[in-house]
C-alpha cells in the first residue's frame, strides 16, 4: 500500500516514531483523526531531534548567561559580544546518522545545515570546524566512512568558501556502527543587525527562497531519533543531497538582503524542513500561518502535501518580509539565480493551515503543538564506578612509548585530513590547523582575533561521565587560553546512545552535571547546541551497543589584539616550563591503552579552581609578552606535548630528570588536567617566582634549542624521526603517500 492511500492511526503513528501515548495526545489536540500530513507534522515536531523531549529537563540546568552573551540557546545559533560593535554567531550540530548511511552527503549536508543556522542570523560565516569520531581503524568500513566524511566536509566547505580551520578526530570501536560527525560554524555580524526567527505582522508575506523542494530527506528527523539496526543502510533515501554552490549563492543573497530593512524574521529549513521552520517562526511570534503549497518551488512532479511538508531538501530558507519590500527582495534573489516565492502569509488564528490544490491538508493549533509536546523525565540507574587501573609497569621505556603514542591513530598527524580542507580562503586565517592549540581567525578589517576549538575526550566520559563532561569544557577553555585569547562561550553537541536505556540516560545526566559545573567555574556559558541521541546500533540478536558518551564542546574566545597571540611551535631558544600540578594519573590515559593495551581506571579529575588559576596566569603572561609558545598538556601527557611542540616548530628541547618522586611513565605520560607547557625566553626564573607568589605549580622541564627531543636519559630522538612517525598513520592507512604536510 502506498503512503498516499494510508490513513492515520496508532499503527501508522508508531511507524512515524510516535508512541501510543503521544498519538493519544495528538487525538486530544485535534479532536478528530489527523490527516496524513497532520500526523507527519506532529511526528517530526515531536521527534527527539526537534523536541528535545528526553534532554530538555537537563539542558535547562546549564548556565547560559554572561554579560557578553547577546543570545543564548533558543535561536538558530548563539551570539556573543566580541567588541567594536561586533558579535560572533556560532553553533555546532551533528549529522551522525546520515553520515553512517551515506558518508559523503551526510557530512556535506551537515556542514551546509550548520552554515545556514549561522548566516540565518545575519552573520557572514568566517570559519568551520568539525569534531569527528570513527570506528576502529581495523574495521573494514571505517576507512570508507573516513574517506567519505572527509571528502564531504571538504567538498561542501571548500566550495562555499568558508575556511575549515580546526577540529578533532578520535577512533574507537564503540563508533563502528555509528560514527559521529559534528560540524561547527562561526560567523561575524554587527550587533545591531542580528536577525531572529519570531514572525510578526499579521498579513505579512511568508517567502520561500533557495533550492526547489524534492522528495529527499523525508522523515530524516525521525530517522535520527531511532536506533540503527542491520537494515540501516536501506534508509539511504532519508539522507539529503547537498549543493554547496546554491548555498554559496544563498549566503550572498541573504546577506545582501539583510543589509536592507526588508526582513521581519528568517529561519532556515533544516530538520523537518518547511514544517519546523513555519511552525517555529509562527509559534515564537504567537501568530498563525497559512501556507499554499501550490506556490512552493518543486523539482519533482506529483508531490503530495505530506511530502512537501516533510522534505528535507537542502539550501532553503523561509522569511517573513515587510510587504512593501517583496519586490526588492525578489530582485536580489533573482540576481543570484535562486527561487523566490511568496508561499503564504501570517494570520491571527494561532493555527498553521496548509492548503494544496484547493484542499486544506493540515489545520493544527500551534500553541498545543508546542506546549503539549511530550517532555520525558527518563529513568536513570546509578553509574557503575570505574574499576582500578591495575598493575602498571613500563615494558618498553620512554622512547619506545613516545614513538608508539605519536604514531597511534588518536595522536597521529591529521595533515592528511586537513590538507583536503581549504583553510585559507577568506585571507584571515592567522593560525591554521596544527599551528596553535586553537585556530585563530582575524575578523576582517579589525584587530580582533577569534580563537576556536572543539574538544571532548570520550574515553574519560565513558569511565566517568561527570568528570568527562567537566574535562571537555575545561580542555576547550584551556586550548583557547593557550593562545592568549579570553574564552567567552561554548556550543555543545551532546552525542549519546538510547535515552530510554537508564544507563545511557545516567551518562547523559552526569555529563551535563560535569559540564555545568565547569561552565560555571570558568565563566564559560553554553549559548547554543544540539543533542543527538539514539547513537546506538542494534545487533541482529537484539543486543545493542551505544557509542562512548561524547559531549563535544565547541569553544570560542576572543583576542582584542590578534597580534598578541602565541602558537605552539617550539622556539629557537629559551626554557620550557610546566604549569600545573603533576600527580601521574594514568587511568584512562592513552599510554595505558597504547602501551599496555588497557582501557582501565578512572578519568582524571579537573580541579576547577586550579584550572581557572592556572589558565588566568597563563593568559596574563602571554598578554605581557613573556611567552614565546604555549601548548596544553592533554592526550598522551607531558612528553607527547613536548614532542608536538618540537614537530610544529622544528627546534629541539633537552629535558632534565624531573625529580618528581614518581615513576617516569607516570610523570611523562600521566594525563593530569589543568596543565600547560610554556616556552619562555631566558631561564624562566622570573616566571617561577611570580607563580610561586600566586600559589601556582610551576617547574622547569628543560632547555630549549638544538635539534630533536633529548630525553632525561640523554638519548635524543631526531625531529625528522618524530615527524616521520607522526605522519605515517593516515597516508599508510588510506593507501597514499603523497600527502605530506609542508611543515613551515
Amino acid at each position, binding site marked *: 500500500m502506498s503512503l498516499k492511500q494510508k490513513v492515520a492511526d496508532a499503527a501508522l503513528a508508531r511507524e512515524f516514531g510516535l508512541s501510543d501515548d503521544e498519538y493519544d495526545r495528538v487525538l486530544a489536540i485535534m479532536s478528530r483523526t489527523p490527516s496524513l500530513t497532520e500526523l507527519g507534522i506532529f511526528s517530526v515536531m515531536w521527534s527527539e531531534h526537534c523536541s528535545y523531549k528526553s534532554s530538555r529537563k537537563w539542558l535547562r540546568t546549564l548556565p547560559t548567561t554572561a554579560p557578553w552573551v547577546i543570545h543564548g540557546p533558543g535561536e538558530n545559533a548563539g551570539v556573543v559580544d566580541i567588541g567594536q560593535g561586533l558579535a560572533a554567531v556560532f553553533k555546532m550540530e551533528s549529522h551522525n546518522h546520515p553520515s553512517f548511511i551515506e558518508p559523503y552527503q551526510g557530512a556535506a549536508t551537515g556542514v551546509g545545515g550548520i552554515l545556514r543556522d549561522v548566516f540565518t542570523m545575519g552573520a557572514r560565516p568566517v570559519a568551520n570546524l568539525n569534531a569527528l569520531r570513527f570506528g576502529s581503524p581495523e574495521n573494514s568500513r571505517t576507512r570508507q566512512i573516513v574517506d567519505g566524511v572527509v571528502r564531504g566536509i571538504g567538498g561542501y566547505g571548500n566550495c562555499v*568558501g568558508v575556511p575549515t580551520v580546526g577540529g578533532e578526530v578520535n577512533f574507537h570501536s564503540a563508533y563502528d556502527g555509528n560514527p559521529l560527525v559534528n560540524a561547527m560554524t562561526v560567523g561575524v555580524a554587527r550587533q545591531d543587525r542580528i536577525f531572529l526567527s519570531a514572525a510578526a505582522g499579521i498579513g505579512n508575506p511568508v517567502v520561500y527562497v533557495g533550492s526547489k523542494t524534492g522528495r529527499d530527506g523525508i522523515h530524516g528527523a525521525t530517522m535520527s531519533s531511532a536506533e540503527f539496526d542491520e537494515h540501516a543502510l536501506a534508509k539511504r533515501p532519508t539522507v539529503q543531497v547537498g*549543493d554547496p*554552490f546554491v548555498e554559496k549563492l544563498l549566503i550572498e543573497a541573504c546577506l545582501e538582503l539583510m543589509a536592507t530593512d526588508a526582513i521581519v524574521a528568517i529561519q532556515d529549513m533544516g530538520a523537518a524542513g518547511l514544517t519546523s521552520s513555519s511552525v517555529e517562526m509562527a509559534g515564537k511570534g504567537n501568530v498563525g500561518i497559512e501556507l499554499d503549497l501550490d506556490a512552493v518551488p518543486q523539482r519533482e512532479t506529483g508531490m503530495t502535501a505530506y511530502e512537501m511538508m516533510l522534505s528535507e531538501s537542502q539550501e532553503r530558507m523561509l522569511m517573513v518580509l515587510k510587504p512593501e519590500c517583496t519586490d526588492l527582495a525578489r530582485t536580489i534573489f533573482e540576481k543570484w539565480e535562486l527561487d523566490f516565492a511568496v508561499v503564504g502569509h501570517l494570520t491571527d488564528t494561532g493555527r498553521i493551515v496548509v492548503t494544496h490544490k484547493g484542499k486544506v491538508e493540515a489545520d493544527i493549533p500551534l500553541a498545543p503543538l508546542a506546549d503539549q509536546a511530550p517532555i520525558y523525565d527518563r529513568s536513570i540507574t546509578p553509574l557503575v564506578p570505574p574499576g582500578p587501573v591495575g598493575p602498571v609497569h613500563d615494558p618498553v621505556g620512554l622512547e619506545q612509548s613516545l614513538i608508539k603514542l605519536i604514531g597511534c591513530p588518536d595522536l597521529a598527524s591529521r595533515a592528511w585530513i586537513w590538507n583536503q*580542507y581549504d583553510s*585559507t*580562503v577568506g585571507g584571515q586565517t592567522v593560525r591554521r590547523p596544527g599551528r596553535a592549540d586553537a585556530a585563530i581567525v582575524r575578523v576582517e578589517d579589525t584587530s580582533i582575533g577569534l580563537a576556536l576549538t572543539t574538544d571532548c575526550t570520550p574515553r574519560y566520559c565513558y569511565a566517568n561521565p561527570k568528570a568527562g563532561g567537566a574535562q571537555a569544557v575545561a580542555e576547550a577553555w584551556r586550548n583557547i587560553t593557550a593562545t592568549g585569547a579570553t574564552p567567552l562561550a561554548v556550543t555543545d553537541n551532546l552525542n549519546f546512545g538510547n535515552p530510554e536505556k537508564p544507563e545511557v540516560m545516567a551518562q547523559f545526566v552526569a555529563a551535563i552535571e560535569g559540564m555545568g559545573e565547569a561552565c560555571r567555574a570558568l565563566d564559560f556559558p553554553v549559548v547554543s547546541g544540539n543533542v543527538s541521541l539514539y547513537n546506538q546500533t542494534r545487533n541482529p540478536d537484539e543486543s545493542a551497543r551505544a557509542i562512548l558518551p561524547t559531549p563535544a564542546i565547541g569553544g570560542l574566545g576572543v583576542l582584542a589584539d590578534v597580534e598578541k597571540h602565541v602558537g605552539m611551535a617550539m622556539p629557537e631558544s629559551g626554557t620550557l616550563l610546566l604549569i600545573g600540578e603533576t600527580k601521574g594519573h594514568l587511568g584512562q590515559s592513552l599510554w595505558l591503552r597504547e602501551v599496555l593495551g588497557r582501557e582501565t581506571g578512572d578519568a582524571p579529575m579537573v580541579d576547577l579552581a586550579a584550572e581557572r588559576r592556572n589558565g588566568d596566569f597563563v593568559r596574563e603572561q602571554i598578554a605581557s609578552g613573556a611567552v614565546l609558545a604555549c601548548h596544553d598538556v592533554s592526550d598522551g601527557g607531558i612528553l607527547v606535548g613536548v614532542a608536538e611542540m618540537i614537530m610544529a616548530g622544528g627546534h629541539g628541547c633537552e629535558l632534565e630528570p624531573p625529580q618528581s618522586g614518581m615513576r617516569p611513565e607516570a610523570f611523562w605520560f600521566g594525563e593530569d588536567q589543568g596543565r600547560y607547557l610554556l616556552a619562555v625566553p631566558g631561564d624562566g626564573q622570573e616566571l617561577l617566582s611570580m607563580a610561586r607568589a600566586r600559589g601556582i605549580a610551576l617547574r622547569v622541564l628543560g632547555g630549549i634549542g638544538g635539534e630533536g627531543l633529548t630525553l632525561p636519559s640523554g638519548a635524543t630522538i631526531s625531529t625528522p624521526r618524530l615527524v616521520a612517525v607522526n605522519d605515517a598513520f593516515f597516508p599508510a592507512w588510506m593507501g597514499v603517500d603523497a600527502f605530506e604536510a*609542508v611543515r613551515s
Partner: protein
Amino acid sequence: MKAGIVVFPGTNRERDMAIALRVVSGRAPKMLWHRETSLPDLDLIVLPGGFSYGDYLRCGAMAAHSPIMREIRKFVSEGGYVLGVCNGFQILTETKILPGALLKNTELRFLSQDCFLRVDNAETPFTAGWQKNDVFRAPLAHGDGNYVADEKTLEQLEGEGRIAFRYVSSAGIACSEDRKSNPNGSVNAIAGIVSADGRVCGMMPHPEDLVDPLMGGEDGRPLFEGLMEVFIR
C-alpha cells in the same frame, strides 16, 4: 593601479584578492558582476579563485561563457592586463586565452597546503617584483590544478620563457614526478604561465593569501608590487 575583480556565481576568493590589492596598492579594486557588458577604465582585471557555477560541467567551463568574458577578450586584445588565479586560471584556459588545461589532481583529491614556487622568468609584469630563480611560498587550494598541454604548446611555452612559476622543493628544485614539491602532478611542474605578450597570467596557487605577516608571511607581495611598478611607469 586601477584594478577590477570579476565575481561569478560561486566565486569565493574575491575578498582575499581585494584585500591583497588594497593592502599593497592602497586602492580598493572595483568588483565586477559577471553579467556586466561594459568595463570601466581599468589597468588590471583579476579573475579570482572559487567554484564558479559550482565547478559543474568542468571547472571554469560555464564562467567562460558569461557575458563579461566577451568584454575581457576585447580588453586582452587591446593589450589589457589580466591575472587569473586558481579558478581564474581555469577560466582563462577554458576561454583559450591561455593554452593548456587543468585536470584533476593526480591523487584525485582536493589539496590545501603550502607549496614553494620558483620564478622562472622575472621579466613579465606579474613577476617583476622578484629576481629570476627566487623561491617563495604560497598556499594552494584546489581539486583541479594538474596543468597539461600538448608537446608543441609545451615547447613553445618553455622556449618563449612563458613559464612564470614552477612548483619546486624548498631548495628550488623542480621535479614533476615528486608529489611533495609538485603536489597536483602538473606537467613540467608548471604552476603559472603567461600569454605570448606577457600581459595575461594564469596561476593555481594563491599569492593573495600571503601578503600579511600575521597570516604567516608576505611571500605573495612581490606579485602585486611588481604590477604596481608596471602601472606607475
